[in-house]
């Protein structure tokens, strides 16, 4: 089987599991809402200055809830030895990575879309009419950034005794540049800044670099 067919099969498998259980997106959605509630109590979010920082709140909520969804990705494979079957299957490990990566990127993107209305309501955020494309690009590039490193490190963390606890400790420092880029591009879409072309380019570079590195290195994680 070639790489893309493997990727398609893995992606379809993860999608079907998620459609039946709604575990990853459900947990990430509720967790995002909870983070916003906590923000509201920790800071007075209904002042004009706070509204300028809304993009930051959104991505903080998303960075934490996203690691929940990512944890699920390989914890799933630990059940009934599914991961071992993946290792022994005569397929390209890069294909397994791609499938998992597409599934995770899609889950993260769907989570963002579900959370967006709540975010707009809670933080009184308005997307500048001509900048919906920027918001869409920010979400897609940001999700890809988190999913690229997140999928690789989720596989790493699932091999340790700490499992779920380790993933945020590994993912969050490495995604710092992506997080800054995502916040700045979303802020641009919300009208908090005038230009974000540098940040779009940074996100794009980050995505290309980490998808490539992960594709090359994933085969080492996927072995016994």
């Amino acid at each position, binding site marked *: 089987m070639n790489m893309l067919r493997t990727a398609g099969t893995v992606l379809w498998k993860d999608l079907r599991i998620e459609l039946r259980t709604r575990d990853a997106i459900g947990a990430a959605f509720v967790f995002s809402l909870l983070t916003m509630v906590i923000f509201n109590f920790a800071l007075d979010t209904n002042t004009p200055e706070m509204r300028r920082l809304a993009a930051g709140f959104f991505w903080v909520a998303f960075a934490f809830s996203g690691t929940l969804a990512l944890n699920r990705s390989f914890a799933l494979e630990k059940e009934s030895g599914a991961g071992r079957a993946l290792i022994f299957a005569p397929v390209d490990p890069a294909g397994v990575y791609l499938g998992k990566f597409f599934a995770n990127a899609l889950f993260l993107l769907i989570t963002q879309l579900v959370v967006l209305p709540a975010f707009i309501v809670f933080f009184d955020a308005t997307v500048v009419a001509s900048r919906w494309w920027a918001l869409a690009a920010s979400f897609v590039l940001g999700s890809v950034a988190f999913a690229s490193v997140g999928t690789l490190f989720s596989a790493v963390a699932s091999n*340790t005794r700490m499992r779920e606890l380790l993933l945020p400790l590994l993912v969050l420092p490495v995604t710092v540049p992506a997080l800054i880029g995502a916040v700045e591009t979303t802020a641009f879409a919300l009208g908090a800044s005038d230009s974000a072309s540098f940040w779009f380019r940074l996100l794009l570079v980050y995505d290309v670099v980490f998808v490539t590195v992960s594709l090359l290195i994933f085969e080492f994680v996927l072995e016994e």
Partner: protein
Amino acid sequence: MRRRIADIVAEGALFVLMLMAIAMMFFYAPIESEMGIVQKIFYFHVPLAWNAFLGFAIVFFASFRYLATRDPKWDARAVSAAEVGVLFTTLVLITGPIWAKPVWGIWWTWDARLTLTFVLWLIYMGYLMLRRYVESPERRAVLAAVIGVTGFVDVPLVYFAIRWWRTQHPQPVIMGGEDSGLDPRMAATLWVSTAAYLLLFTVLYRRRLALENLRNDLDTLRAEREHNQGVRS
């Protein structure tokens, strides 16, 4: 035996060089006209930072070599460099604010270099933590190497992201160029101190490497004994 002698010579040289660096800091280099005595911390701070970066570069190289060769000696090198690197980075993060408070008036600022150092510290703490939670030595080496490679690829991205972010949001404190009008005696002191810390790094790294090798030998012996007992019974 020859290795022991080389280590003893290196440690003797370290003692002499470190004394020399400290003597130069306090008796040779002039007291800075604006910052006063507190500026002397820079002769510790800057060499520690440079050598910490060297350590993380070694982690990257050794991790990469480990994945290519699967030779355990590269894993031992990577973990030794990571531990000394994290130790040096911790000292950088402690000495920095001690200097910054009297000079800048604040303990910390999210300037590009400070943030990069802190993020690096977090990445390599994650690297060391990961190692503690994997039982099998080969799995541990492989997974750690994956983090060692990916973490280092992140360094330029973090740096450019934060630098750009800073230029968009100017800070009240602006650092001048490091060599701007540096007194030649200060420069000489900085270089001697850098050499001393490079040697300190090397000595600590070699000790840590020897310890790692002893541990691996012990694991092998234990495994052999268990195997032999299993065969006998």
